[in-house]
């Protein structure tokens, strides 16, 4: 039981490191390419901004959920 808990904690740490690298790259992309576009949309067309904000959040949530699940699956399969 203890071994199984230690194993899942190690899996989590490995996942956290890979995920951390991915998130830093992703956020750099978002701020570098989308920041000005979103700011001007916020100032000029609020309805368009609302729709884009909702879609962006939806896509990111689903995408990150798939990535975290997939990463954990791959790490555990690799260990076996």
């Amino acid at each position, binding site marked *: 039981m203890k071994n199984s808990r230690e194993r899942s904690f190690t899996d989590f740490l490995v996942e956290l490191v890979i995920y951390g690298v991915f998130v830093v790259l992703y956020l750099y992309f*978002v701020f570098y390419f989308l920041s000005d576009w979103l700011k001007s949309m916020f100032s000029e067309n609020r*309805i368009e901004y609302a729709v884009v904000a909702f879609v962006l959040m*939806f896509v990111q*949530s689903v995408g990150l959920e798939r990535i975290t699940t997939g990463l954990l699956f791959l790490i555990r399969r690799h260990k076996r």
Partner: protein
Amino acid sequence: MYFPISGTHLDPIVLVLLGFVVGVLGGFFGVGGSFLAGPALFAMGVPFNFVVGTDLLHIVGKSLVAAREHHLLGHIDLKLAAVMVIGTIAGSETGVQAIEYLKQGAHVNLVVGIVSIVVFTLIGIFAGIEGWTVLRLHRSGAQESGREKDRLAFGFFARAMEGIQLPPHVRLEQSGIESISIWSIVLVSIIGGLFSGFLGGGAGYIRMPCLVYLLGIPTHVAVGTDLFEIVISAGYGAVRHAMNGNVDILIALVMQTGAAIGAQTGANLTQYFSGPRIRLAFAPLPMLGAILVAQKLLSGGH
């Protein structure tokens, strides 16, 4: 780092960590975590109108994923959810309009801050009493199961609500309820929507206890149905607030990256703790939110 939409300087690492903590809370306690995320954003210097809108948008994504999983498990009472949608949207719109009204008078931070302190303190006290009562009954050897156990500590609220006999009535097969007045469901959904639109977040902290203690819905169905309503109320509220210029999408996206991994961590942690202990551990967290808001207001943050 400068966030141009809300015009604030925030540390993205702190935002990711805040998202992570909120995600853990979501996975562990089954709540959105707005009682902590909202006050923390306010304490970091984000104006309260942006706090409310941004927190709503951040919660939409998280709840969508969780609600889908609960639907697959059959934990959403679709009939109950359909009746609730009307009240949820009406309540949410009222909350949004209240924020707009307060923005005109430049009192938004003070009023929303004071309401937050009162609500979060009451929720903390309620969760503490409920968790403690259930734990004490368990220790004394009381043997209850299923729905009775869910309603143990505050069953008299549910019995009072069942006394409302205004027609029309509806039968909720999935929740095991033979007959309940539609008005009592609408009342609960309006309360949830109002809190969501006014204080931000999905208002699961108020809707979930109302579903269990007032309407007598079994906890696992209440969690799934509450998540569905959070998607509706937070989604509607987020779009309306974005249209009114109260959403900083960049802050929400940064927080969400932490929340995604936090939710997984929180869900894994639940296997090590029992239900009443989880609810008792939850009690101090809304109080912490109330302290953060009070500290910011007292230091002249409004």
